[in-house]
């Protein structure tokens, strides 16, 4: 039996709003193994992003349990959870989320800022990952001087610079053209082949080809309806967001 990297048990998340309670997740149980690449699909409001933020140690669940590499992350204090994010998780956000006043290199250095590594070593690591994502010649450019694809590469470089075991991505190709999106997905596949566990929220069925497994969320629950899954995978009922 493969080692489980992410274990979710009866995960529920409820938000209070003026209109009453919103049940974003209604009992999700899921295991993701080490080195696995999983695509999360679902319609808008199905709970995809909520699931990602909970796994990302950013958003405590209302009930249920979640362990990453055997660590009950929400039993940790806020500050220790920040340390956990830095050491275990790499984030690739929707719309890149680069810091606009920092260069590509400085953006990639961000996860290393609060580590105890020597400054030179941090720079070496950042340069290495930028070279790996094909941005060797553009390290000192500000984000607004880079194309969408290049910004996405910087975001990926930033997510992997601290060598986390888990990479979380939220709609990473949502703002890219098809060709650039394919290149980015190839990069994700390469990272997964290097042993990284990848969990990607996507609305693009083409992206699922690069992932080992696809799960579908519907109304806060894992979808068991094969027809629904096939429909989403085929691109029907495709909607943005989630």
């Amino acid at each position, binding site marked *: 039996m493969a080692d489980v990297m992410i274990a979710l048990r009866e995960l529920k998340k409820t938000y209070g709003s003026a209109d009453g309670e919103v049940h974003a997740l209604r009992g999700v149980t899921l295991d993701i193994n080490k080195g696995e690449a999983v695509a999360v699909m679902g319609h808008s409001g199905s709970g995809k992003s909520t699931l990602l933020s909970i796994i990302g140690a950013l*958003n405590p669940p209302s009930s249920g349990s979640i362990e990453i590499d055997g660590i009950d992350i929400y039993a940790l204090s806020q500050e220790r959870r920040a*340390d956990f994010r830095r050491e275990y998780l790499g984030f690739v956000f929707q719309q890149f989320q680069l810091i606009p006043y920092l260069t590509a290199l400085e953006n990639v250095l*961000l996860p290393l800022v*609060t580590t105890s590594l020597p400054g030179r070593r941090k720079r070496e690591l*950042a340069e290495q990952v930028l070279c790996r994502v094909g941005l060797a010649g553009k390290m000192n450019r500000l984000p607004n001087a880079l194309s969408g694809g290049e910004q996405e590469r910087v975001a990926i470089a930033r997510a992997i610079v601290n060598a986390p075991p888990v990479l979380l991505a939220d709609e990473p190709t949502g703002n890219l053209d098809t060709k650039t999106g394919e290149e980015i997905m190839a990069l994700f596949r390469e990272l997964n082949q290097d042993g990284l566990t990848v969990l990607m929220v996507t609305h693009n069925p083409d992206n699922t080809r690069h992932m080992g497994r696809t799960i579908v969320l519907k109304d806060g629950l894992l979808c068991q309806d094969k027809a629904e899954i096939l429909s989403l995978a085929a691109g029907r009922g495709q909607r943005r967001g989630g």
Partner: protein
Amino acid sequence: MTIYQIAVSNLKRRRKKVLFLLLGLVVGVSTVVGLLTIVRAMRLELGDRIDEFGANIVITPRAKGAALNYGGVHVSDVTFGAERLTEADLPKIDTIPERKSINIISPKIVGAVDTGGQKALLVGVETKREFTQKPWFSLREQARLPAGANPGSLSLLDVPADGLVAGFAAARTLGVGAGDSLTLNGRPFQVFGVLNETGGREDGVLYANLAVAQGLLGRPGEFSLIEISAYCNFCPVEEIAAQLSSALPNGRVTPLRQAALFREETIDNFASFGFALSGVVLLVAALMVLTTMLASVGERTREIGIFRALGFRQAHIVRIIFLEAGLVSFLAGLLGYLLGSAAALLAGPYLAQLQGTVPLRTDLILPAVLLSTVLAVAASTYPALKAARLDPAEALRFI
């Protein structure tokens, strides 16, 4: 890449906001520095001009006796017992720790003399010291003055051994003028000069040389009182009086309220008003820092969410905000010091009616920087905590 570099990069990006913040702090710091510089200059000038205000400490013998009154001070005329002030007491004054604050020491003997049927009050003084200490004394008449010449300055004139300087009222009562002869206790004197009217008790006094008067009164080497002009920039006159009291156990030391103290009160009032004004300006500066930093945190919600998602602790976020406030306020402290000093140098003489130049206060550089930094960091505490407590999931719109 360090937290410091993140703070600097953000400041470079928000130049207008930084300039606004800088301006508010510079105005606050420069107001305080300018006022402190002017107040110090006023106090120094007061010290330099103390002799214009006369004596402010009087030492009389600690003795029982029938008192004569001189210038509002009780002077023992008839002493009995051992308590006397003598020439041996003068060197003791030089031993007190605040000796450097004493400008003029003017010992004198006071006694009643017979002018041939009328009693008069004779004061023996070291004339140059006495008249330097009381610059408001001036001669209306002077003996042996060539026709058409004006009387000289008293503090520069040597009064002959047989000469007298008569107060305005004394001259009128005794019916004498400059150059006239007058017999005191049987000894002939010539009236060297007559003083202009001062309106004070000194108008009824005859002044003679100290040694001559001591001989005439039969009290050689003895003083009735010692008048002292003293001013200390950093300690009250009472402090000097206390030191004198210790040095002269046979004397009763009395600090006087007078012009110098009135001037000091004026300075104190100016300083109090200035500090109240500075307080208001600093409060406004602090509010400016608070609102600017709050607005900055509001604009950077998403950015702070990214930092938190990438593993920055709450403490790291607080450090970024404090560093930004600290860097701006450090610069504001230096600029505020320079601007405040320049303003004091240029406007001080007009604002505080100073006659001399305003000395720069280099000792205020560090306090100015500290004031600015502490103020800005304190005002940034709430925005920094607010930033640190932002929910990263909400900031990144996961919710």
